[in-house]
């Protein structure tokens, strides 16, 4: 599962049931959630021979699996509690079922997939233009995050708008208080190293969480985003059918580079590639980069540019201040030439990165996704070996392990069970729904990462 979908799911799972009922009123939302999670789930549930129609209840042959528990957290299915007389029954929730059916059959008059504008389109808005625009806006935001770390990196050009800056600050990606080495925070570093699509989601989730302060309804925002995800790239949509709050939102989305509104025709908007790939699965993430690549064949920013040798020396063929700033987060850069920078990956530079919250895996994945074509060629010549020198990769991991003295998991400790039988049943249930982290049978204690379902289970045991 990609990072971005993880983040968006975690947010969704935390929402109350009433929010979901309102969300699923929009067919586009139901379809988007369905599309996003489909690759990760047991398809058996959807194509089970008994489930001829979507909300046909099917009996569970075995204990609820982790996938089912995720579905129930997203309020897609409803699982009845197990009783002595009746087996457990899983059924699709009404709201989700009917909306998904509407979305798949294309019926209804809900306008939840946007209304194409009938006005004549502006001639100069084509795919290349939209890609350029989206990238310019997005890099502006990234620049702001990076340049808040080091003075002197600050660019003269236009940064993101004040609203975006404020959002980044309230999300603790950057901070104005200049303690502990500058304005960028731990979350900001992790944000930088993510893929573009994951970054978009991170920022959007921040935005949704702040929606209340900006007097917007988070449900409205979410369903609007899911609608954007179902729009077609390069097509003009009409703003006249949008609700007042959606019109308010769209100004923010313009700041993010998700939407473009031509200055000449204010009643049209164009979703950019950042918006239309929002609800696609992991493979579409790469197509964002690929799409940008196609648009910028001469831009080195998106191509591989990093060469790393077995002696930890690193050469990066880039002139982009953004890329250099990112590299300097975990590399000791020593020399800058007109077309490249060189430096070394050292124990200290990795320590510094780790102390800011960047993991070794993030560093390694950043290096390998941006590896220079020469490195790729060399690995292909050796029969598809690793792209990065294995010694360097291992050492970066070892440096991290050296510093990771403990593994921390937040959650709940359960103890003081009345009987062995009760303990066994609860621990078994916790294990089955995939929340059990640690258990000690002699002490009759266990630790779980999530408590909601287990609490319901313990209650339902009491009732019997």
């Amino acid at each position, binding site marked *: 599962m990609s990072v971005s979908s993880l983040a968006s799911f975690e947010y969704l799972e935390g929402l109350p049931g009433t929010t979901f009922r309102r969300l699923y009123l929009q067919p586009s939302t139901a379809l988007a959630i369905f599309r996003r999670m489909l690759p990760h789930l047991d398809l058996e549930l959807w194509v089970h021979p008994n489930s001829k129609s979507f909300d046909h209840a099917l009996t569970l042959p075995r204990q609820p699996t982790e996938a089912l528990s995720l579905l129930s957290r997203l309020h897609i299915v409803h699982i009845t509690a197990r009783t002595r007389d009746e087996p457990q029954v899983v059924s699709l929730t009404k709201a989700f079922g009917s909306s998904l059916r509407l979305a798949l059959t294309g019926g209804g008059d809900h306008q939840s997939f946007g209304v194409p504008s009938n006005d004549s389109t502006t001639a100069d808005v084509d795919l290349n233009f939209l890609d350029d625009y989206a990238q310019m806006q997005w890099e502006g935001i990234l620049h702001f995050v990076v340049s808040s770390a080091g003075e002197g990196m600050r660019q003269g050009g236009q940064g993101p708008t004040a609203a975006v800056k404020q959002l980044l600050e309230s999300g603790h990606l950057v901070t104005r208080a200049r303690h502990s080495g500058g304005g960028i925070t731990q979350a900001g570093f992790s944000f930088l190293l993510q893929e573009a699509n994951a970054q978009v989601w991170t920022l959007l989730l921040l935005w949704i969480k702040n929606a209340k302060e900006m007097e917007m309804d988070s449900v409205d925002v979410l369903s609007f985003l899911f609608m954007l995800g179902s729009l077609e790239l390069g097509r003009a949509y009409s703003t006249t059918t949008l609700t007042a709050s959606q019109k308010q939102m769209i100004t923010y989305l313009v700041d993010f580079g998700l939407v473009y509104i031509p200055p000449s025709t204010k009643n049209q908007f164009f979703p950019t590639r950042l918006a239309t790939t929002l609800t696609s699965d992991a493979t579409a993430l790469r197509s964002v980069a690929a799409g940008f690549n196609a648009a910028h064949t001469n831009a080195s920013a998106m191509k591989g540019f990093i060469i790393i040798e077995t002696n930890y020396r690193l050469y990066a063929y880039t002139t982009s201040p953004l890329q250099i700033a990112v590299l300097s987060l975990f590399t*000791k850069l020593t020399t800058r030439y007109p077309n490249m920078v060189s430096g070394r990956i050292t124990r200290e530079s990795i320590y510094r990165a780790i102390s800011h919250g960047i993991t070794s895996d993030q560093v390694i994945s950043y290096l390998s996704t941006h590896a220079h074509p020469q490195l790729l060629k060399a690995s292909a010549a050796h029969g598809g070996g690793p792209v990065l020198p294995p010694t360097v990769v291992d050492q970066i991991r070892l440096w991290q392990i050296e510093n990771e003295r403990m593994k921390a998991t937040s*959650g709940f*400790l359960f103890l003081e069970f009345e009987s062995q039988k009760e303990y066994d049943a609860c621990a078994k249930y916790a294990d089955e729904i995939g929340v059990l982290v640690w258990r000690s049978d002699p002490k009759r204690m266990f630790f779980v990462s999530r408590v909601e379902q287990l609490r319901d289970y313990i209650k339902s045991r009491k009732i019997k």
Partner: protein
Amino acid sequence: MPRAIRGVLVECDPSIKSIIVKIDSEEHAFIVEDLDDQTLVIKENMLAVLKMRLDEALKETQQPPSDSGSD
């Protein structure tokens, strides 16, 4: 009825655990439950502080090996 306590499960080496116990013995501000040699539950809001204190304690006892080779 079983009891549930909110906290952070910390899994670490026995040596690290004994340092954590030592840090906690000063003001008992961290540990909620001492589970076994390699696991304990600490207060959720104290994790960052504990990490800092642990790093300090380790710095006193360890000499980081210097990097070999130069630029």
